[in-house]
Structure formats: structure tokens, C-alpha cells
């Protein structure tokens, strides 16, 4: 006689081997590997995108005849990539043969180190980007007219009493220095904000896993 599903269910689970619980080990191994792999993949893609972006800016700036901007951006963005490639070497050195907790802690330490380095670098990067942009518009194309100088001549014609320092109107110079000062001061924070937009979710997940594992270790 054909068995009902209820009978199959009951009889099936009467056998002892049907309900063997798996051992709880390496609880976070898969999760940890996944999170580290994901971050590394995103980090590499970002570096490639920055290099591609720097070439794009360079080409575009020549095309629209503000090459100083493209050149400045090219130099600073590729320096940023070189700094981060050097940081990536540290990531590759993390020992994968230790237990998951130690592995994640090493990764977390590397992350803190790279954030600290990039925060410092951001204090140079953002002012440099601003200056590149300003220089691009000020100097125009190589060997051609200097739009910035023409602008100052126009201003001095209309406001002859205006104070000029190093070929720039004093108030303009103060404004530029103020922006640079703000970018130096807030560069680290701008970087953190930027970093959180791109990697925030991965970072949060990492923090959660480490916090869970620390709880597990306390209770073990």
C-alpha cells in the first residue's frame, strides 16, 4: 500500500541517522572570506576607475584647452593610486592560515591603517584638485593667452584702487587661501564621508562580525 506523506515523514525520522546536527565550527569563516573578498574586489575596481578617470580628465582638459587642470588631476590621482597600491601589498601579507577572528582583526587593523593614510593624503589631494581646477581656468592652454591675467587687467581697469599681490587681487588671494585652508582642515572628514558612501556597508558588516565574534569569545 502506498504510504502517506505523514507516514513517510514519521518513519523517516525514526532512524537515528536522520537528525544528526552538524558541528558548529568555523562559524564565521565563509562570511569573513566573503566580506574581505568583496572589499578587496571593490578596492581594486576603484583604483582602476581612478586611473581611467585621470586619463579621461587629461584628455578632456586638453580638448577644452585647460590642460593645467587635467595635468594636475592626473598627477595627484595617480599618486593616490600608487599610495593605495602600496597599501594593497600590506593586505596581501595578511596571514590567512590563522583563525577567522585573528584574520578579521588583522584585516580590520589594515583597514584602519589605510584609512589613516588616506585621510592624511586627502588633506593634500583635495586642495591640489582645487588648485588644479583654478590653475586650469587661470592659465588656459599652453603658450596661449592667460585668461586669469586678462581677468585681473579687466578688474584693475574698473577698480584701479584694488590691491594686487603676486599678480592676484588681494581678496581673491584671501578667498583661495581660505578654500585651501578649509580643504586641508576638512580633507580627512571629506575622505571619510566619501569612503563611507562607497564601502560603508562592507565596513559595517565587518564591524558586526567582529563584535559578534568578540561576544562569542567572551561566552565560550
Amino acid at each position, binding site marked *: 500500500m502506498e504510504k502517506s506523506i505523514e507516514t*513517510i515523514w514519521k*518513519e*523517516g525520522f525514526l532512524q537515528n541517522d*536522520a*537528525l544528526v*546536527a552538524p558541528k*558548529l565550527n568555523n562559524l564565521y569563516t*565563509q562570511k569573513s572570506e566573503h566580506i574581505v573578498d568583496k572589499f578587496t574586489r571593490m578596492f581594486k575596481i576603484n583604483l582602476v576607475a581612478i586611473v581611467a578617470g585621470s586619463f579621461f580628465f587629461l584628455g578632456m582638459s586638453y580638448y577644452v584647452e585647460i590642460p593645467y587642470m587635467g595635468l594636475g588631476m592626473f598627477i595627484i590621482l595617480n599618486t593616490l593610486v600608487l599610495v593605495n597600491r602600496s597599501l594593497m601589498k600590506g593586505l596581501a601579507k595578511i596571514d590567512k592560515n590563522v583563525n577567522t577572528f585573528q584574520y578579521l582583526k588583522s584585516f580590520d587593523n589594515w583597514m584602519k591603517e589605510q584609512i589613516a593614510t588616506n585621510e592624511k593624503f586627502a588633506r593634500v589631494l583635495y586642495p591640489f584638485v582645487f588648485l588644479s581646477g583654478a590653475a586650469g581656468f587661470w592659465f588656459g592652454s599652453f603658450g596661449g593667452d592667460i585668461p586669469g591675467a586678462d581677468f585681473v587687467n579687466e578688474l584693475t581697469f574698473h577698480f584701479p584702487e584694488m590691491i594686487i599681490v603676486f599678480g592676484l587681487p588681494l581678496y581673491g588671494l584671501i578667498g583661495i587661501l581660505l578654500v585651501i585652508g578649509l580643504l586641508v582642515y576638512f580633507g580627512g572628514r571629506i575622505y571619510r564621508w566619501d569612503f563611507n558612501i562607497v564601502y560603508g556597508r562592507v565596513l559595517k558588516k565587518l564591524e558586526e562580525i567582529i563584535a*559578534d565574534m568578540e561576544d562569542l569569545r567572551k*561566552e565560550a
Partner: protein
Amino acid sequence: MSSDFYTSSILPFAAIIIKICRAYTNTQEDFEDYYQEVSLQIWKSRDNFRQQSEWSTWVYRLSLNVCLTLLKKRKNNPQHFASDYLPAEITEDSKAFANESLDQLYYAIRQLSEVDRGVILLYLEEQSYQEIADIIGTNPNNIGVRIKRIKERLKKILDGKVN
């Protein structure tokens, strides 16, 4: 997670977790992954247990929710799991039990929708319609009809009429 908590509060209910996890996974690797995740979530959510229901009912509910969440994640990120799709027939890897009929029944259950799997598992575990409705979050009046339809579908699958 302390070994005391696991031994006293999870292990006695391991059968529930195993039965549910088996219904939502196709391979041993995924099953172990799900089992671990359910155990972990029980431990992490233990303070949320309000004693308004039996601990076992709470374990059922939480196990089902975790499995459904993992299944959703699995659909979004199939590369992170060993098995993405239900094989066309029972494979060596998906054979979890020595009892062939039980393996076939599980194979049929895995072909049901995610919610239907939960309903039939709870029914087979002799939960009342009210308990099933509470766990699934539906009206108990609908459960009887739904179970009847699920059983008919399972029978067809087991008889080889439906793939």
C-alpha cells in the same frame, strides 16, 4: 555562543532546525551553513523570546525566517552558495537520509514555493492550524485548504506527474 546555551537551548530542538534547513537547501554544504546561521540567530535573538509561546514554536518561527532570508540572499548572490538550483533529480549530494522515501519527500518539498515549504513542514510536525498561521503570519482559516493543495501537489510530484 556558550556551549551551555547550545546544549540546553538549541541541541534539544536541533531536529526542528535540521528538518527546516533541509527543506531549504540542496547540498550538505548549504545545509550546514543554514544550520549554523539559524543556531547563531537563535543565540543572538534569545533576549527577544517573550515566553508568549513555547520555545519550540519560537525556534520554528525563527528557523523559517532565517532560512527564508538566506534563500533571498542566495537568489541575490548565487555565487556565494554551493547550490543555486534544485537539480532535475535527487543527486548523491542532495541525499541526506538513509531512508529513500524521506529523501524523495524532501525532494518534492523543495519544489514547492518557499512559504508552502514552511506550511507543510509545520503541518508534518503536527503543529495546529492556529500555530501554523501564527508562525507563517496568515489566517488559520486558509491553512486547511492550503495544506490540502500542498499535499495534492506533493503527491503528484512523488508520483512523477510533476517535475
